[in-house]
C-alpha cells in the first residue's frame, strides 16, 4: 500500500522535476537511496521548488539576511560611517541580521495589560498569509507553484490584504500612537492602492494578458520599463509607499509616533513585524521585475538548466532592491497630508496617462 503511494508520488514528482545538469550526478546518486530519493524528488518537483526554494521561502530568508545588512552598510557608507562590523569581522559584519534575529528570538515578548491579547499575538503571524500566498503564483521559468493566466491580478489582490492586518495590529495594541499609526496606514492604503492598481492594469492592457508568461515573453526584446516608463515610475513610487519606506515612512514614523502600529511589540513579535515590510518589498519587487524588467529573461548557462530562470529572477530582484535601499539615506519623511495630496493629484494623473499608453501600445502590439 505505502509502496504504491510512494511510487505514485514518485511518478508525479519525476514527471515534473527540475532539470539541472550541474547537480544531475548527485541527484542520480541520491535517487538510489530509499526514502531519501522521495525527498530529493519532492524538492526538485517544480511547484514545490518554486514555492519553497527559489524564488520562494528559502531564498526569501537569505534575502532578508542580506538586505537588512546591506541596507545598513550602504546607509553607513553614505553617512561617512562604517556600519555593522563587529559581528563576524572578516566578512564585514554580514551576519549582523542573523545575530539580531537570534536576539529577538530569545527576548521576552511583552504583551501589555490593555492590549487585546489573542489578536495582539496572532496578527503578526496572520499577516504572513497574504504575504506568502502570492509566492505560489509567481512563476520563474518552468518553476511555478500554481499556473494560472490571472496570476498578476491575484498577486495584486493578495497584496491589498496586508494593510488590513497592520490596521488590526494597531487596534489590538490599544495605544494612542498605534491608533494614530493605524489611521495613517489606512489613509496611505487608499492613497497608494489606486495608482498602483492602475499602473498594473496598464501593463496588463499592454501585454494583453494577466499571465506572467505572456508578459515576460513580450519583453524579450524591449523591457516594460521602456515601453511604459510612466507606469514604471508610478509603480516604483507606490512600491515605496506600500512598503512604508522613506520618504513615505509615514505610518511607522518612529520620531513622530514611535513606530506607529508596532509601538507595543517586543521580542520575536517585533522581529516578525519588522520583516513584514521587507517581505512585502520582496514580493512587490518580484512583480516589478516581471512587469517591467523582463522577468527571468537574461543569461542562460547550459549546466544550470531549469535553474537559470529562478536565479535570474532572484538576482534581478535583489539588485533592484539594493538600488532602492539608497533612497533611505536620501530623503526625509513627507507629511501624511502632502503624500495624500501628491498621490491623489499627481500620481493618479500619471497612472491614468500610463493606462492610456498601455491601452494604445497594447492595441498596436
Amino acid at each position, binding site marked *: 500500500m505505502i509502496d504504491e503511494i510512494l511510487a505514485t508520488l514518485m511518478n508525479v514528482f519525476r514527471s515534473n522535476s527540475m532539470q539541472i545538469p550541474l547537480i544531475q550526478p548527485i541527484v542520480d546518486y541520491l535517487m538510489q537511496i530509499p526514502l531519501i530519493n522521495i525527498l530529493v524528488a519532492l524538492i526538485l518537483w517544480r511547484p514545490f521548488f518554486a514555492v519553497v526554494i527559489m524564488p520562494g521561502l528559502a531564498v526569501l530568508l537569505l534575502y532578508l539576511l542580506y538586505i537588512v545588512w546591506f541596507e545598513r552598510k550602504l*546607509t553607513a557608507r*553614505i*553617512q*561617512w*560611517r562604517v556600519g555593522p562590523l563587529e559581528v563576524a569581522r572578516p566578512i564585514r559584519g554580514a551576519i549582523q541580521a542573523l545575530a539580531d534575529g537570534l536576539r529577538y528570538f530569545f527576548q521576552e515578548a511583552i504583551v501589555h495589560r490593555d492590549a487585546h491579547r489573542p489578536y495582539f499575538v496572532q496578527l503578526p503571524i496572520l499577516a504572513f498569509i497574504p504575504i506568502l500566498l502570492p509566492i505560489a503564483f509567481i512563476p520563474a521559468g518552468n518553476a511555478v507553484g500554481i499556473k494560472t493566466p490571472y496570476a498578476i491580478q491575484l498577486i495584486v489582490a493578495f497584496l491589498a490584504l496586508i494593510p488590513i492586518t497592520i490596521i488590526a495590529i494597531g487596534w489590538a495594541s490599544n495605544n*494612542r*500612537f498605534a491608533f*494614530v499609526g493605524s489611521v495613517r496606514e489606512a489613509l496611505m492604503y487608499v492613497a497608494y492602492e489606486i495608482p498602483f492598481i492602475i499602473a498594473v492594469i496598464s501593463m496588463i492592457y499592454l501585454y494583453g494578458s494577466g499571465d506572467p508568461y505572456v508578459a515576460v515573453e513580450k519583453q524579450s526584446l524591449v523591457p516594460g520599463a521602456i515601453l511604459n516608463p510612466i507606469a514604471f515610475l508610478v509603480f516604483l513610487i507606490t512600491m515605496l509607499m506600500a512598503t512604508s519606506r*522613506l*520618504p513615505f*515612512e*509615514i505610518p511607522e*514614523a*518612529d*520620531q*513622530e*509616533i*514611535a513606530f506607529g502600529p508596532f509601538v507595543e511589540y517586543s521580542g520575536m513579535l517585533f522581529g516578525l513585524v519588522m520583516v513584514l515590510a521587507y517581505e512585502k518589498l520582496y514580493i512587490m519587487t518580484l512583480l516589478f521585475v516581471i512587469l517591467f524588467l523582463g522577468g527571468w529573461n537574461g543569461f542562460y548557462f547550459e549546466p544550470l538548466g531549469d535553474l537559470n530562470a529562478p536565479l535570474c529572477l532572484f538576482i534581478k530582484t535583489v539588485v533592484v532592491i539594493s538600488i532602492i535601499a539608497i533612497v*533611505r*539615506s*536620501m*530623503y*526625509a*519623511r*513627507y*507629511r*501624511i*497630508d*502632502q503624500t495624500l495630496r501628491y498621490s491623489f493629484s499627481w500620481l493618479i494623473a500619471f497612472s491614468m496617462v500610463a493606462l492610456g499608453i498601455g491601452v494604445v501600445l497594447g492595441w498596436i502590439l
Partner: protein
Amino acid sequence: MEEIKIEVPVEPPKELETLFLPIPKDYVEDTYRKDDFLILVGPQHPGSGHMRLIVRVKGDIIQEVIPDPGYVHRSMEKLAENRLYIQNIPLVERPAIMDSANFNLGYVRAIESAMDIEVPERAKFLRTILAELCRIGTHLYDAAILAVFIGHTTGFMYPFGIRELICEALARMTGARFTSSFIIPGGVRRDVEEKTLRWVYDATFAIEKRLKSFERIFIKNPTTIARLRDVGVLSKEEAIRFGVVGPFLRASGVEYDTRIVEPYEAYEEVTWDIVTADEGDGYARFLVRVNEVSQSLGIIRQCITSMPEGRYVSEQICDDVKGNFFDKFGNLVLPAGEYTTLTEAARGTLLFTIVSDGESNVPYRVRIVTPGWLYLRGFMESLKGERLADLQAIYGSFGYFPPEADR
C-alpha cells in the same frame, strides 16, 4: 459639506488620572467632551527630548500644547550658591555643553564687571574664537536633531561628522573637546600657539567644504523644504510678544543680536552680518542658523588673521595662570552688588546675574536665564493649528534643548 454629528460618549482614559499631569482634571474632561484627543508626547518618546508635551489634537490638527518641562532640572542656581566663584565655571557650562564657551563667557563677564577687570586684547580675540566655535557646534547639533526628527538619518550624521572638527579645534586650543572651562576672569587659562591657530584657520575652510555636501543632501533637500516651509509660522509681532530670542527672533524679521546691541569681546573689531529672514516659518529658522554658521566661520577667520600679540590674562590678576590658579582665584570675593551680563549664546540671549554680599567667597545668588526657557512660549504658540506630524519638525526647527531650559 454638512458636518455629521455622531454622539459617542468618550470617557477619558484612566491613565490620565493616575499619571501626574500639570493639567487640571476639568481640562481633561473638557477635552474629551469636545471630541478632542490628548496625546502625551514624552518623556520616553523618541521625538520629545527630556520633556513632556501634552498635545490636544482635533483630528490631526493640534489645538493646544501644554509643555511639562523640568525633567532635567538640576538646580544649577542653588548649587552655585555653595561653590567658590571659580568653581562655578564648570557648573555653569553644564546646562548646554554644546554651547559651553558662551555660557562660560557670560558668567565670567559678570565677574569681570564686578571686579572691574580690563581684559587684554589677545584674550578677547581668543574668547571670541571659542564662543564662535561653540556657536557653530551648537547650530550643527541642532541641525542634526532637526534632521533626525523629520526622519533624515544622513542629515543627522553629517553635522555630527563636521562637529568633530569643531571638537578637535577646541581640543587643540583648550585641551578638552567641549566644556573646556577655558575662560577665566581676566582672560583665558593658557596662551594658544600660532600653529594651533593656523590649524583652526584651515579647519574653517574644511568645514565649509563639508557643509556644501550637507547643503546638497539635507538643507536643499525637497523633502526638508516640504516639511519645514510654511510650518510653525511666527509673525514679527507674535515673535516679539511671546519673547522669542536669538536666531528664532531674527528668523521672524527682527534685527536683534546682543553682539550688535551691546558688543562685547572682539565683536566690534570684526565685520559680520546679522542674519535675518522674513518668513518666520520653520525653514527660515533653520536657514538663519545655517547662514549664521558661515558668518561665524568668517568671524573666526578674521579673528585669527588679526590676532594681536600680548598677554592672555590681565595683569590685574596675575602674570601666569599656571601654578597661581588657586592663589589668585581661590578666594575671590566680589564687592557687594548685583552684576548682570547679556550674552548672545547660540540659541539666543543668555542672562547671568550674580548677586554678591561682599563678604563671602561664594555668590549670594546666581540667576541664569537661558534662551531655551525664553522661547518655550513662542515654541508652544507656533504649534497651534499645525498637524501632529509637524510637532517634531517645529521642535527641531527651534532646536529646543530641555537641559538648557531646565538648568
